[in-house]
C-alpha cells in the first residue's frame, strides 16, 4: 500500500522542506482526487487572504439604488436586499468559514488527542473518568451540543469556534486513545519511563508524535464538518451575526424571503459552502486512505 512511503516528519532536519514537497508531490501523483481537493482548498485560502484585493466591492457597502439586482457584468453574482455585492460577500465569507473551520478543528482535534493519549497512558481510574466524560459529550447530536454551548456563551465568531470545538473533541479523543493504547506497551515508552521521565514528557514527546496519523485524519475530517456546522449555526441566526459576511448567514432571512425574485442570493452562497466542504472531504478521504486505510471515520 501507499502508506508505507508516505509519512510526516516531526524531527527537524535541514532538508525538511524538500521532503515535505516530495511527499506532497507523491501524494498528488497517487491520489488525483485528493490533490484536486487540496488545490481547491489552496485557492480558497488565497481568496481569503487576498480578499481585499480580489473583491470588487466593499463587503459592508450598502447601495439601496442597486437592491436585488440580477447577475450582470457589474455584479457577477447579483446583489442582496441591501444592495451589497453577493460575490464580494462570498469572498469575504471564505475568511469566516476558513477561520472558524481551521481554528475549531485544530483545537478540537488537538485537545481531543491530548485527552486520548493521557487517557491511554494513565489507564485505570483516570482512563475510566475521562472515558465517561467523553461518553457524556457523545450522547448528543453534534448540533444540539453546539447549540447549548452557544446559549451559554452567546453568538459571535470566538464563541462559535468554541461551540464547534466541544462536540469534536470527544470524537478525536476516542480514536486517538485506541491507537495510543497499543503505544503504551511499546518498548520505547517503557524505556522513557525507565529513564525517569515524567508523564508530561512521555505523553508530549514520545507518545503524541506517534499518533500523528489518526490525529491528522480526524483533523481533516473535522474541517468540512466544522464549516458545515458554522454555516448551520449562522443560518439559524445563532452564529456569526450581521453585518459580517458568512455563507450561512447569507442564506438566512432575505435569501428565503426573496427567493423567487432573487434566487441568486440563495444559490451562490450554498455553492460556496458545498464546494469547500466537498474539497475538504476529498482531501481528507485521500489522506485517510494514504495514512490508514483501515480506519473508518
Amino acid at each position, binding site marked *: 500500500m501507499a502508506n508505507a512511503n508516505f509519512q510526516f516528519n516531526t524531527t527537524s532536519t535541514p532538508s525538511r522542506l524538500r521532503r515535505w514537497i516530495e511527499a506532497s508531490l507523491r501524494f498528488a501523483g497517487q491520489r488525483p482526487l485528493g490533490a484536486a481537493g487540496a488545490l481547491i482548498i489552496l485557492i480558497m485560502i488565497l481568496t481569503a487572504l487576498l480578499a481585499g484585493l480580489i473583491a470588487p466591492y466593499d463587503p459592508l457597502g450598502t447601495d439601496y439604488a442597486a437592491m436585488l439586482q440580477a447577475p450582470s457584468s457589474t455584479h457577477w453574482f447579483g446583489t442582496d436586499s441591501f444592495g451589497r455585492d453577493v460575490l464580494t460577500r462570498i469572498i469575504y465569507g471564505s475568511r469566516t468559514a476558513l477561520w472558524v473551520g481551521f481554528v475549531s478543528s485544530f483545537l478540537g482535534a488537538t485537545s481531543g488527542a491530548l485527552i486520548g493519549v493521557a487517557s491511554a497512558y494513565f489507564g485505570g481510574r483516570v482512563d475510566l473518568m475521562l472515558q465517561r466524560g467523553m461518553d457524556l459529550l457523545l*450522547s448528543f447530536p453534534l448540533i444540539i451540543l453546539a447549540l447549548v454551548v452557544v446559549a451559554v456563551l452567546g453568538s459571535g465568531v470566538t464563541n462559535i469556534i468554541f461551540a464547534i470545538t466541544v462536540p469534536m473533541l470527544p470524537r478525536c479523543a476516542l480514536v486517538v486513545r485506541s491507537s495510543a493504547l497499543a503505544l503504551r506497551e511499546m518498548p520505547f515508552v517503557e524505556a522513557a519511563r525507565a529513564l525517569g521521565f515524567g508523564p508530561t514528557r512521555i505523553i508530549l514527546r514520545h507518545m503524541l508524535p506517534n499518533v500523528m496519523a489518526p490525529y491528522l485524519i480526524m483533523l481533516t475530517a473535522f474541517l468540512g464538518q466544522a464549516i458545515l456546522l458554522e454555516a448551520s449555526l449562522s443560518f439559524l441566526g445563532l452564529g456569526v451575526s450581521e453585518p459580517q459576511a458568512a455563507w450561512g448567514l447569507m442564506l438566512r432571512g432575505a435569501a428565503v424571503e426573496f427567493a423567487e425574485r432573487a434566487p441568486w442570493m440563495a444559490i451562490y452562497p450554498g455553492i460556496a459552502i458545498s464546494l469547500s466542504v466537498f474539497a475538504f472531504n476529498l482531501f481528507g478521504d485521500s489522506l485517510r486512505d494514504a495514512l490508514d486505510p483501515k480506519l473508518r471515520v
Partner: protein
Amino acid sequence: MRQYIFKRLLLMIPTLFGVAVLVFLMLRVAPGDIVEMKYAGTGAFAPKEVLDLERAQLGLDKPLWHQFISWMWGIVRLEFGNSMWTGRPVIHEIAIRLELSLQLALMATIVAIFLSIPLGILAALKQDTWADYFVRVFSIAGLAVPSFWLGILIILGFLIIFQWLPPLTFTSFWEDPQANLTQLIWPALAVGYRYSAVATRMTRSAMLEVLREDYIRTARAKGLREKTVLVRHALKNAVMPVITVIGLEFAFLVGGLVVTEQVFNLNGIGMLFVESITQRDYIMVQTLVLLISFVFIFVNFVVDLINAVMDPRIRYQ
C-alpha cells in the same frame, strides 16, 4: 442475553444522570433567564420586584441544588413539569412535535436505505468504472451539500417552475395521509440524500470486502444464479456495518434536524429546541435534551443488540 440487556439498560441511568447535571448547570451559567427574556420581549420597563415575584412563581429563587432535586424527583415520578414559557405541561408540548419529528426521521431513513444499498452494491460490482465513480462523487457530494440549502433549492425549484409550494401546515398522517406526505416527502428527500452518503460508502466498502471471500467463489462455482449469490451470500454478510451506520443516523435525525425544520417551516423537536433555548425555558430545554440523548443512547443499544442477534460471532458481555 437477558442479563446483558438488563445491564446495558441499567448503565443508561448514570449516563442520563450525567447529561441532566451537565445541561442543568450549563443553562444556569448562560446569561439571562426566562423572566428577563419575557420582559425584554414586551419592551416595557419592569421593576425588580415584579421580576423577582415572577421568578418566585417559577421556583427560580430557590437554591440550585433545590431546583435540581425537585426536577429530578419529578422525573422519577414521571412528572416532567410545565413549560416555563407557555405554562403547559412539557410532555404535552413535546408530544405534538415528536410525531412530526419521528415521522420525518423515519421517512428520511427509508429514503437513505433505498438510495444507499442499491447504489453501494452497484458501485462495488462495477468497481473502478464510470458507474462507480458516479456513485462515489454522488455520495461525497451528498456529504458536502448542506441539507438546509438543498431544501431551499427544492422549494425554489417548485416556486419557479410550478408556482407551487409544499403545504405549510402539518396534518397528521392518520388524518390525511396524502396531505401529510406531500408536505414531508421533500424535507425527507433533502435529509435522506445527505444521510445516504455515509451508508452508500459503507455498503460499497463492505461489499467489496465480502465479494473477495472464498465462499462467494464457492457459491458461484456451485452454479448458483448471480442474484442468489449477491443477495443471499454477499449482501447478507455485508449488511451489518450498514445497519449500524443507518441506525446511528436515525438516532441523530430525531433531534438533529434543527436546521432543516427551519427551512421547511416544520414545527418539530428541533424548532422547539431552538425556541426554548433562546427563551431560556429551562424545564423545556432540560427535558428535550434528556429525551434526545435518551433516544441517542437507546438506539445505540438497539443497534448493538441487532448486531449481536444477527451475527452469532459477537458475544454478549
